[in-house]
């Protein structure tokens, strides 16, 4: 069924169509091919199952479930998988591990310190296998790999909390991905679907001594803070399972809806279903 056959194919109508691999999208030469499509004798076919998206002349198909494919400037959370010579390989829930070069991290002792020979030998004093890193996508390698950097002060090693994994499609790209929620919990929403929920640490304290940025020691976390972190983490799991956009607003909605229930019951079937209804209702009402 070609687009041109539909008499009044408005852009919105085009956009909402769900296509599957191999279906023809349009054979109008004016359109250009974007992601998720391929061309064959000047007809554009879709190569994935998803919703067609048209941005002025570019037609692309965004699959509903896919691994994270990076964009320059994305805020991501990654786990160090391997320590190489002058570089770390970072698992960013993507098609291949990203790379964090020794030259693109902050060295303890402030910005002005030059990179020493000894730094290359003590790579594990900065990041070791299993460490969680909060970084930004800096550039692409020739083979599509992501090159990360942690040069701003808010980036670096993640502490005092726990990790939640969600579908990358549910995390919309927005200005800032580092939020302090009203309930006193910091969240780092990685665009690659890794979300770090942790205790609130005032930014000023981190800048005070830059030796701290690579320490592995957690600060003291009180029981109430621990309970709030667990509640937020369960709310994010719930949103992910509901396949609902995960933003700071939707997390706050879920948090407020979950207050009457105990934290450990949030993910039981009965409580989760009625929480689902209230959250969806508020989201519809709000949008």
């Amino acid at each position, binding site marked *: 069924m070609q687009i041109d056959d539909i008499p009044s194919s408005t852009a919105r109508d085009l956009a909402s169509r*769900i296509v599957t691999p191999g279906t023809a999208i349009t054979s109008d030469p004016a359109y250009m091919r974007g992601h998720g499509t391929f061309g064959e004798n000047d007809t554009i076919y879709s190569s*994935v199952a998803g919703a067609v998206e048209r941005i002025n002349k570019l037609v692309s198909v965004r699959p509903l479930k896919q691994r994270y494919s990076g964009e320059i400037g994305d805020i991501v959370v990654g786990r160090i998988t391997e320590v190489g010579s002058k570089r770390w390989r970072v698992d960013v829930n993507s098609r291949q591990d990203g790379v964090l070069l020794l030259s693109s991290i902050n060295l303890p002792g402030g910005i002005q310190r030059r990179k020493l020979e000894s730094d290359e030998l003590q790579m594990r004093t900065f990041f070791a296998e299993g460490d969680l890193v909060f970084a930004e996508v800096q550039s692409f390698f020739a083979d599509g790999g992501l090159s990360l950097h942690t040069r701003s002060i808010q980036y670096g090693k993640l502490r005092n909390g726990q990790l939640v994994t969600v579908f990358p499609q549910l995390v919309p790209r927005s200005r800032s991905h580092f939020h302090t929620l009203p309930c006193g919990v910091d969240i780092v929403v990685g665009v690659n679907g890794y979300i770090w929920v942790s205790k609130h640490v005032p930014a000023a304290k981190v800048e005070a001594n830059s030796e701290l940025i690579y320490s592995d020691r957690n600060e003291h976390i009180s029981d109430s803070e621990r309970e709030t972190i667990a509640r937020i983490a369960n709310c994010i799991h719930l949103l992910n399972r509901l*396949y*609902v956009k995960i933003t700071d607003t939707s997390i706050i909605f879920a948090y407020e809806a979950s207050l009457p229930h105990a934290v450990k019951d949030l993910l039981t079937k009965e409580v989760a279903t009625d929480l689902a209804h209230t959250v969806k209702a508020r989201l519809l009402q709000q949008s």
Partner: protein
Amino acid sequence: MSRQELLSPEGLRVDGRRANELRRISCRASVLSSADGSAYYEQGNTKVLVAVYGPREPRAKAQFNHDEAIVNVEFNVAPFSTSERRKRSKGDKRLLEISSFVKQTFEGAIQRSVYPRSQIDIYIHLLQHDGGTLETCINAATLALVDAGVAMADYVCACTAGSIDDTPVLDLNGVEESSIETPDLTVAILPRTGNIALLQMESKLHTSKLEDVMDLAVEGCKHIHKKLDDAVLNAANDLASKLGR
């Protein structure tokens, strides 16, 4: 089982189907939570569960190439799948053969250049076996790959066909497949262009009959394509509606 009983004079087969009838197919996408894509596929009494991971970082550092993804297939058969329990070792030649067939089929269909330096893993579990193993594995793997959002030129639909008493027969079940006289042929096509991704036959079939057995199989594939498409659309619409699209 003498040949006569396989096809009754009125043209009915052992399980009551007509010569050109497919077995009942029921399939669902995204059935496993941890896999990137997954599918559960039943064709008659043959039941298959497939999990797809990827494209992701290749585990063995040695075998990856810089400009396209590599496809890795692992096929294992549950010991309780056949009527007579049989535990197959990991290095079982028959299993490796089927996984290499599936690998070749999808190496052509997946647009591997879109995912350089990565690996796509397809793990197939045969839960119940009643003929048409390769056919159900390919259909289920297609569904799981599409569910995982892997870029593919088209669906890959497979179907078996054979001939009993010189009449071409579609979609052989366990009994028909195991009887020696009935040749059975598996064909996998990309429905949009009709290109053949895989053609496999291990028994003798007279060349004159090859033509119409192949056509019957291709006909079956088109029907299966419709079924797979519905399953994908169900899953996609379900997710899209949740997302408020």
